């Protein structure tokens, strides 16, 4: 009995120490956490609360009338749908291209591969507004591409500028580097011998891709997807400069509602809806991260 008491006491001491460490840790993050609370969380909560305040004669009541108004307006709904669809298309395309580049980089070496790697990271250093203007000059009416095509006798070029394809190209361009970084990191975990072992046992290229390589990077892919999605769904510059006047991406729509139309209440409702969509994907991102943590333990 006495021999039992001792370890128990020691583990009690250990627990106290852990508690102290935790407290010290908390103290360290308290300041930034406080700032986060005051500068971001509070205004957000107050704004969300505000969208549920419906003006009536002589004051306000709490209700969902503003949201009903948003979903009753066919133009608003069209914008929402347009945003979602093209965000998804852009994400999937950017991921597919990045996966292709990463696979190429995994199995190649030498100068050309290094150059392609550098090139694929290049958009990381170019601000969205510059990309947008560059694309206008390149793809736009009487842009470089059209001139080049005419030089070789191809006429009737229809510019993607001011169509949904315009911002789509911009988004894909912008969102190659991040997935390339995470996927190449994931693929480098798969040793040459692991791939050769599969080949040796009779697996062809597709089976190796789907059963050996992709499973090792699927978490990287999910995380990259979430990050791109969150960036694209709220984008402003690219769709504003390259996209069609209507329908609009939510970012552009929100800005116009707030700035040109001077209707902050409606803009707030749009913002909350966008926020809900983003938090769904954000939650999914966190879940993926947590699953990885647990999996490692």
């Amino acid at each position, binding site marked *: 009995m006495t021999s039992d008491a001792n370890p128990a006491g020691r583990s009690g001491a250990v627990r106290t120490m852990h508690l102290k460490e935790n407290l010290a840790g908390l103290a360290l993050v308290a300041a930034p956490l406080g700032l986060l609370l005051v500068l971001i969380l509070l205004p957000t909560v107050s704004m969300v609360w505000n969208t549920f305040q419906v003006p009536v004669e002589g004051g306000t009541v709490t209700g969902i009338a503003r949201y009903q108004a948003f979903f009753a307006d066919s133009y608003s709904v069209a914008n929402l749908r347009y945003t979602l669809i093209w965000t998804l298309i852009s994400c999937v395309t950017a991921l597919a291209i990045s996966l292709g580049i990463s696979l190429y980089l995994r199995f190649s070496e030498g100068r050309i591969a290094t150059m392609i790697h550098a090139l694929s990271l290049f958009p990381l250093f170019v601000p969205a507004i510059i990309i947008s203007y560059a694309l206008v000059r390149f793809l736009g009416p009487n842009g470089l591409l059209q001139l080049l095509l005419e030089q070789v006798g191809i006429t009737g070029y229809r510019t993607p500028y001011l169509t949904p394809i315009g911002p789509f190209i911009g988004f894909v361009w912008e969102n190659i580097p991040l997935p390339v970084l995470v996927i190449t990191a994931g693929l480098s975990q798969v040793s040459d*011998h692991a791939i*050769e*072992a599969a080949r040796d046992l009779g697996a062809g290229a597709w089976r190796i891709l789907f059963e050996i390589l992709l*499973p*090792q990077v699927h978490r990287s892919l999910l995380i990259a997807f979430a990050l791109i999605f969150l960036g694209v769904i709220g984008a402003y510059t690219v769709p504003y400069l390259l996209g069609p006047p209507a329908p609009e991406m939510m970012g552009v729509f929100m800005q116009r509602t707030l700035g040109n139309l001077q209707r902050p209440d409606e803009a707030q409702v749009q913002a909350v809806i966008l926020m809900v969509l983003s938090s769904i994907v954000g939650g999914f991102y966190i879940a993926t991260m947590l699953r990885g943590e647990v999996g490692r333990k």
Partner: protein
Amino acid sequence: MLKVQNLTKLFEKNRAVSGATFDVARGELICLLGPSGCGKSTLLRMIAGLALPDAGRIDIDGKDVTEAQANRRPTAMVFQSHALWNHMTVAQNVAFGLRVQGLPKPEIAEKVAAALTLVGLDGFARRRPAELSGGQAQRVALARCLVVEPKVLLMDEPFSALDAHLRANLREELKALQRRLRLTTIFVTHDQEEAMELADRIVVMHAGRIEQIGRPGDLYLEPQTLTVARFIGQMNEATVTLKAGRADWLGQPVALPAPDGPVTLLCRPEDLQRDRAGIDVRVTRVIDLGPMIRVTVATDEGAALTWVCGREGQPQTGAPLTLRPSRLLAYRDGQRLGTAAPVANRIMAERV
């Protein structure tokens, strides 16, 4: 069963393997033995189809597979390390080759279980590779190959990342398994002890060339080239000049029926005996190896020799001795010239 002819592989003019020719019989275990970088892995990878030869021909079971891709050859390879797929369980790893062949699920499950039993990993089916020790991981890799019943099993230094004790155990298990299943196996190693213990025949490689092929004992007793003689076991070496069939090896007159010229004579440490009619030496170092004693001695001219003797009659450091070689291997231009025999030395001759 397996026939390799004149196989050659170049890496940018650097001959990794040149003109390799050998056969492997059904159920035989062949070791490719040589120092690191001599082309063992490259040769094995060509047999597996993971590297294409620049010249030569490979036949397996009478079929030319020289140009066949790795996934179309009846070979399976165990790598040195890291070749398990981390996202799959042990059972899924082992099942992979069978799924590729399109076998029905119940049959796969049955064969996987049998293969895991074979390598002594019952109950590990649902583990992940990250939860295995190095030895267990290599057993899984072996099971993954065995389960597809390859015509030739290839192993590239499968145990060299493991500690010596475990390595010895796995070696013994592998040999027993190989005998029982009559597996045709090529095993690559740079460790001569491993090769000696495992192999039916050893292929000794050096700088991309095959130096000699033979049974372990033959390689030890009759190395055909100077390289093999130096690589396998220990040797006392001295180059001397042969004149009229006589030469003087560190003070020991020897006879060798061969044309005059320089000749390198090598003597195994255990082929030196204490003998009053021998080379005068002084003990410089005594190393107790347990079952035997390794003694380093120096001749009057300062040449160092290694001698092994039993525990009884163990000499002291600094003590004078006379040692006489009983058997000397002779080489000229790297090739075997014959065996030199010691003859009665001058002092003896004077006494007579």
